[in-house]
Every structure is written in structure tokens, then in C-alpha cells.
């Protein structure tokens, strides 16, 4: 962390987006995480993604649980709605908020402890319910806030900084998410913004449950030479299955790939994903193949990254439940709370 605040002064030639804002307008307060923390890079990538997508900050809600990762929403989008919830309970809070107001963009920020341990059940059911949200796990394989104990996503082959062996197998959140029916599943690395920013943009515009597992080295406890979640290890073993171009509806496609080497996916909002396949065997629209790609890379000690799986036609929770299209705050009071007589009528119907 730093003691002086980031100055408000900015480069005089800073680009502005369609809303007339610079990326500095999407920042939050000064991070209190350790210097070099991967989470700060993910925060910066989120700021850049929201800036490039011209999102108005007041139409975004950021929700988190407990942990280093869950502190992070303070460090971006200071003009957005936010809820820093109970440990592992981010999915429930987001589900409730989304039921009440489907018009906001929901960014859930969680960590490997918050998601893969205390909040594992919540995680599963948010996916099962197809909550329209972007669920980001800042995954560093350890409990950084409590001195670096192993988390449930730490690889069995990855000992602690002091050399203690990890006795248990890791939970692979991407595999779980695909099995549970998440419509958009990606993995990335905090040290690779060129990959992370387009994935974040695609995840935010995805209609349905979008899951993003971002390996984010803990510089203090899990960036040692024997760690599998260190900057060096992930760089050396990163196996990107594809390269994503996220193209907003208003933009033209400029990149051209040879026939058969790319997959184009049109999103609910008209934007398109153009995936340049780096692994020819991989088809991101095939869930079984996606799980195979993760498993076979992991067996070779590699980390499969990129857009692993995408379901082009997912229905979200509101589609499934056929709820009112309006956000509750725009439903007139008389309709929202029809009064004693209406309640009596309902009760009478049930007697």
C-alpha cells in the first residue's frame, strides 16, 4: 500500500470515451493491498474495460464478500453502487439485487477462499439460477489476508513459501462452472491485460452467468519459485486456447483470420466475439471439449487460459422465471404494494 494518494492530476492528452470521461473517472480510492498485488492489475483492467465500453458508472453495481479480493471493489468505480457483503455471500446478495433491478450491470468480485471454500454452495446456486452477472474470482491460491494459508484452489504440487507441502487436490472453478451450466467461462492472468481486458468486456456484455477465473499472484505469500500461482510460473505455463477480439455493435470487424481458424459468436446485445483459435482442437461452444482442454493442459502442468466455453443462447434467471420486465423501483407503488384488500384476496384464494 502507499501513504500518499494518487494525485488527481492526469495527462493533458488523456483520451475520452463516448461519455466524455477519461479512464481516471472510473477509478476508485487508493488501494491498500500489497505493492505488486495481482488484484490491483485486475482492478486496472476492469477500469479500462468499463471505460472502453462507455459504461455509465451509476448503472453498475459491484458486490463482494470478504478477503483481499473483496476489498478490491473499493479501488475501482467509486461512482458505482457497491455492497461489501458477508464472507462467501456475494452470490446471494447479487441474486437478490438482480431480482430487484435487472437493469444494472452486476460485477461480483470474489476470491478463491470466498468462492471455493466458505461460499462454494452460494457459487453453485448463483450459476444454477443463471444470474445475469459477471463473477470474477481473483485467484491467488492462498489466504493472503490471514498470512497465506493454502486455499482450496492451490495446486497439490505447490508448497507454501516456507516449504510446507499442500496435502489436498485443488478445486478447478472453471470446470465446476461449466458443469453447473455457466454460459460464459474464461480464465486469465492478472499479468496479461491484453488477454484480460477483452475477456472482461465480453463477460460484462454476456447475457446470463459469466464466470472469469483470474490467476492473480499474491506477491507477499504465493509468488515464490515453487508456487504454481507466481508471475513467473504462470507466464511460463500459460496455454492460451484462443485469442479473443471483443467487437462492440458499433464497431467494424478489422482483424481477419484464415478460414477455419476462428469462431464468431454474436452476443445478446449485438456485440460479437471473434475467437482466433490457438488450439485447433478447441471449440469454445462445446462444453465437454472445454473441460477436456482444461484437464489435459492441467495434466501437463499447464494453465489453460482464454475463453474456454461460451453458450450462445443462455436464458437468464428473469427469462426462466418470466418476471416483470421492469426494475422494482420503476413499478408504481400502487402496483408494487396493492394494499390490504389485494392481500386478503390472495389469502382467500389459498384457503
Amino acid at each position, binding site marked *: 500500500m502507499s501513504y*500518499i494518494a494518487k*494525485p488527481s492530476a492526469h*495527462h493533458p492528452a488523456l483520451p475520452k470515451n463516448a461519455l466524455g470521461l477519461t479512464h481516471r473517472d472510473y477509478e476508485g480510492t487508493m488501494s491498500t493491498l500489497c505493492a*505488486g498485488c*495481482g488484484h*490491483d492489475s485486475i482492478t*486496472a483492467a476492469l477500469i479500462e474495460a468499463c471505460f472502453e465500453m462507455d459504461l455509465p458508472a451509476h448503472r453498475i453495481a459491484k458486490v463482494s464478500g470478504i478477503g483481499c479480493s473483496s476489498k478490491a471493489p473499493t479501488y475501482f468505480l467509486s461512482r458505482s453502487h457497491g455492497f461489501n457483503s458477508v464472507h462467501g455471500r456475494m452470490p446471494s446478495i447479487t441474486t437478490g439485487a438482480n431480482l430487484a433491478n435487472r437493469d444494472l450491470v452486476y460485477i461480483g468480485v470474489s476470491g478463491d477462499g470466498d468462492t471455493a471454500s466458505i461460499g462454494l454452495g452460494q457459487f453453485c446456486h448463483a450459476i444454477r439460477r443463471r444470474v445475469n452477472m459477471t463473477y470474477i474470482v481473483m485467484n491467488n491460491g492462498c489466504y493472503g489476508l490471514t498470512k497465506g494459508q493454502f486455499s482450496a484452489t492451490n495446486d497439490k504440487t505447490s508448497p507454501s513459501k516456507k516449504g510446507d507441502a499442500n496435502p489436498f487436490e485443488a478445486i478447478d472453478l472453471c470446470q465446476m462452472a461449466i458443469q453447473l451450466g455457466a454460459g460464459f467461462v474464461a480464465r486469465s492472468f492478472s499479468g496479461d491485460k491484453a488477454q484480460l481486458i477483452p475477456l472482461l468486456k465480453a463477460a460484462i456484455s454476456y447475457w446470463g452467468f459469466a464466470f472469469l477465473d483470474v490467476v492473480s499472484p499474491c*506477491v507477499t505469500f504465493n*509468488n515464490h519459485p515453487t508456487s504454481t500461482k507466481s508471475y513467473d510460473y504462470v507466464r511460463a505455463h500459460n496455454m492460451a486456447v484462443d485469442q479473443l477480439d471483443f467487437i462492440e455493435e458499433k464497431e467494424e470487424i478489422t482483424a481477419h483470420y484464415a478460414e477455419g481458424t476462428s469462431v464468431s459468436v454474436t452476443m445478446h446485445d449485438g456485440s460479437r466475439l471473434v475467437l482466433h483459435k490457438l488450439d485447433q482442437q478447441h471449440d469454445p461452444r462445446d462444453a465437454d471439449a472445454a473441460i477436456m482442454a482444461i484437464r489435459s493442459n492441467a495434466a501437463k502442468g499447464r494453465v489453460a487460459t482464454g475463453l474456454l466455453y461460451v453458450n450462445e443462447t443462455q436464458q437468464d434467471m428473469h427469462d426462466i422465471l418470466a418476471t416483470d420486465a421492469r426494475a422494482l423501483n420503476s413499478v408504481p407503488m400502487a402496483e408494487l404494494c396493492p394494499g390490504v384488500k389485494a392481500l386478503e384476496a390472495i389469502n382467500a384464494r389459498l384457503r
Partner: protein
Amino acid sequence: MQAGELAARSRGRTAPTDISNPSYFHKVVDCQWACPTHTPVPEYIRLIAQGRYAAAYMLNWESNVFPGILGRVCDRPCEPACRRGRVEEKPVAICRLKRVAADYKGEIDAFMPDIPSAKNGKRIALVGAGPASLTVARDLMPLGYSCVLFEKDAKGGGLMRTNIPSFRLPATVLDEEIDRILAFGVEPRFGHEIKSLEALLQEGFDAVFIGTGAPKGKDLNVPGRTQARANVHIGIDWLTSVAFEHVHTIGRRVVIIGGGNTAMDCCRTALRLGGMDVRVTVRSPRRVMKASPWEIEDAEHEGIPIFDNHSPKEFLLDKGRLAGVRFQKMREVGVDRSGRPKLEPTGEEVVFECDDVLMAIGQENSFPWIERNIGIEFDEWHMPKVDNTTMMSTRAGVFFGGDAAWGPENIIWAVAHGHQAALSIDLMCHGKDLANERPKSSSSRFSQKMGIHEWSYKNDYAPLNRVAMPHADKAQSLRNLKVEVELGYDDKLAFKEAERCLNCDVQTVFSAPLCIECDACMDICPVDCINFIDNEDEPALREHLRVPAHNKTQDLYVSTPLKTGRIMAKDEDVCLHCGLCAERCPTGAWDMQKFMYVEAQAAQACLTHHNAYLR
């Protein structure tokens, strides 16, 4: 090899920055780089902020010799260069802070270099007692030289005394700084005009330095000039007469012709000598007026109107006496190749009635006293041929400096020339080669890290407005030529202004082998100047940075390749030197290091404070 890879290779590479070259970081300290004598501006501003005025003064004195004078009337090339002016609107008031050091320095005699009582036997003649000659004397006296200073006027100072009115530069300030040098044992010959260089050379001096300035004011030959001569004055000559109290009054209505700093001094002096209706007229449009913006501002503040696009056409006479000036009004029609506006007459004419005219349309060099057959070559503009490193003319042992060398410049350039000439004279007297054996400038870097999040400089940037200069009451200062208009900052105002300095000499130093490419520095940088990027040739690299680096006067700091093959590229342009990159770096790949640059001078004894930083 794939086509894409081939294309990437043909894109070229920008070579890593060689930070062992002192020029690289020196250039980042824009103010010091712009200063002809390379005064270490941020260092003395920090000393002022700490209230260490004597140390701040000495650091200045060692570089620029006349901090009290320059703190009032310097041309301030440092200020347009100031990085704060690129981040915000206005640069740090560097010049005014220098004056604070001079005003509050207290007793400094103990810091003066020792002057050897046993002389080295070398005698140097200095012609003209302006800033250039005085600098040569200061640099040579501590080495045991005997210096003889010839001056046609009764007192030393040259144009600083004759052409700058005392309401801008009080005589006490001038006397103090000149006397300090004379007290080194310089032998002054005031009131002694050199009429023949050949005769002087025959006196057997080991070297002769000519710092006689550009003393000839330009004249304007339009109809009526001769007939009106009693009331048409050459600006600098008239200012000299005022300075030596030969002239005490001027007519009620005065027209000044010219738009430079001399014109500003003329109009404000005329106001104090009884001018009621004083007007400045300039041939060109206002935006290309030569006067410094602050001098124009001060003149206008005193109620003097400036009429631009007025070209003088005729002096009008009434009964043989000057009655007015007829002007042709001009209009701008595009610009020429050098960017100067092209003017054409509009056909409209105006007449300004007046009692006196002061002409301040430029100065020229004049060397009627230098024989053309004594080995000193002159060029087609009648200027001596002078080597721009050694300051030596085509005759060995004769040196030029200040305005005498290449025409009108300013005081700070004259000082810079004086330092170089003194170096050359010392080399020559020791039988060394003036160019090849010239001492090199030195520099040092030292980490400012004191602990976690602790730096030995104030790195917390805050947007602050430039502190306004308090002025003397106009009713009083306009009546008295000797009342100084600018009152100077007090300690509180000085502290406030000093806090605006960005400490550009505290450099961001990057070590590629330590970098783990976590992006922390790039993400935290408030001005987006740090990039981790694929290497390309410089024009492409500049274009592809997070914010394209379009200010080509500012360098890119390029690292050696990192682990991923990318490079770190930093655009120095608007770096705030806040040190957040170094604070956020988990591995210490960034460090904030104070860079100290010291220009070589003849006398090491005059560099005590500078050299303290190099140890």
C-alpha cells in the same frame, strides 16, 4: 519464419536508454537543462522550502554568480521549460524564489573562496565590467590570477546598471554582488575606456577577455529624424543617462517605439520622470512582441497602453520642435517561412502628438576600437569570429563573451560565457589544449529511499496556483524612480511557491532485471507515462504508448528487454516525479534517485556547495 514475425522484425527497435550518460537525466530536469549556467533549480528550491536561504543562495552563486540580480531581472529560460507548466497552466516562479534566497541569505562571507595572497604571475585584462567579465574575474581570482578590469563608466555592472532601471533592480543589490567579486582583489580601472585593443595587447597581458556588450542602440531613419533630434532619444543611451543621474525629467507626452524589454523599461522610467501620457508603439502584432510577458504585464499594470501594428512613418515638427509621430497602421497577412507574421500597410494613418520619443528598436555590436589587422577576424556582419566552446577569437589569447560575442542575449548567457572563457584562459595559461583537455561536467545519483513509503523529498503532488508577487503601492512607486516595484515573497509565500516544484531532479530509475512485470507501476502512474510494450522503432513506439508521446522534445526512457521480451517505455514528458511507481514496485525495480549535475568551472573553490552533493 511466419510473415507476421518477419514484419515484426522489420519494425525495428528503439535502443535502451543509456542512463550513465549525464545528459539523459539532466534533460529531464527541464529548468536546469534550459538554464545556460545549469543552476540546480530543484535543489535550491528545496533548500528555500527548508528555510536554508544561505545554502540556496550559495548554490545559485556558484552557478550563476548574481542570484540577487538575476532573481529580479533574469530572462528566466527555466520558467517556460518548467514541467509544472505542462501539467498545469503556470510554471513554478523560479526566478522569484531565487530572489528569496538572496533577500534572506544573511551573512555569507564565510562561504566565499579563499583568494591566494601569492599570485600565480598571470595577468588577465577584462574589458567592460558587465556580467561576463565579472564572471571571468570570479572564476580566476581564487586560482591566483591577477585581473585588471577596464570600464568606461564610473561604476561596474555594465548594462545591468545602465539599462535596467532601479525600480526593477535597486543599486544596493547590484553593488553588493559586484563588490563581492571586486573584493577578491580585482584591480578596477573605472572611467577608463579602451580605445585601442592593439595598445592594450602591448601591455603584455597573458589573456584578454572582451565583454563590452552590444552598446549601440539602433536608430530609425524616417523623415524628420534629424530636425527633431533634440527630443528623439536612443532608448539605452537615455536609460544610461537616467541611471547616472544626468537626466531627471522628460516631456509630458512620450511615445516609445519598440516592443522589447528595453521599450518596457523606457516607458516605465518615463512615467516616473514626469510622463503623463506614455504610449508604447510596436510595428508587429502584439503576440510576437519581444518583451517578456511579465514585463509587458507590469507596464500595463502601471496604465501604459500598447499600440501594436503601428509602423512609424514620420516625425512631425512644429516650429522646429518635435510635435508628434505619424504611424502607418499595419495588418497581418499570413506568416513567413520562419513563422514571423508578414505585414502590409492598411493605408490608415494615425498621429500621436508627443513631446519626446524614445527609440528601443534593438541593439548592435560595435567594435571601432578593435584594429582589423591584429589577427582578430570579423565576419560579414562585422562580428568577431568566436569559437562557441572555448570563447576564443581567431587570435590566441583574446576571448569574447556576453553580448560582445554573438550579439544581444541576456545576463544569464553572459555568465555562462564568462565561465567557459575562464576555463579556457586557465587551460591556456597551463599550456593545455582548450578543447581536448577541457574538464568534463560531473554528475551523481543517490537513492532517496529512507524506509517503507518514506522518501527524503516531498513527493505528494497537489495542484497549487502560482503565488502572485506583492507589489509596492502604485501611488508611491510611480512617483519615485528608486522604489522597487516588486516587493519579493516573504518566507510564507516562498514556502507555498516552493511546494509547487515537482522535484524533477529526483529521477525515476528503472532496473530491468528486478522487474516481474506485475503492472503495478503502470496502473498507479497518475499521468499514464509508464508502459510495458513490444519494442518498435521510436516513432512507432511513441505512437503506441498508452498516451501517445507527441512532445518530441521530451525523451522516452526505454529499458532492456524484460522476461516476456517486452520493454518498459516511459514518456518523461509530464512525469510528476511523485514516486508512486517506486512505492508500488514490489521488487524495488523502480527507485527514486536524486540526480546532481555540476557544470565544470575553472575554480573548484567556487563549487564547494555543488561538490558537497557529489561526494
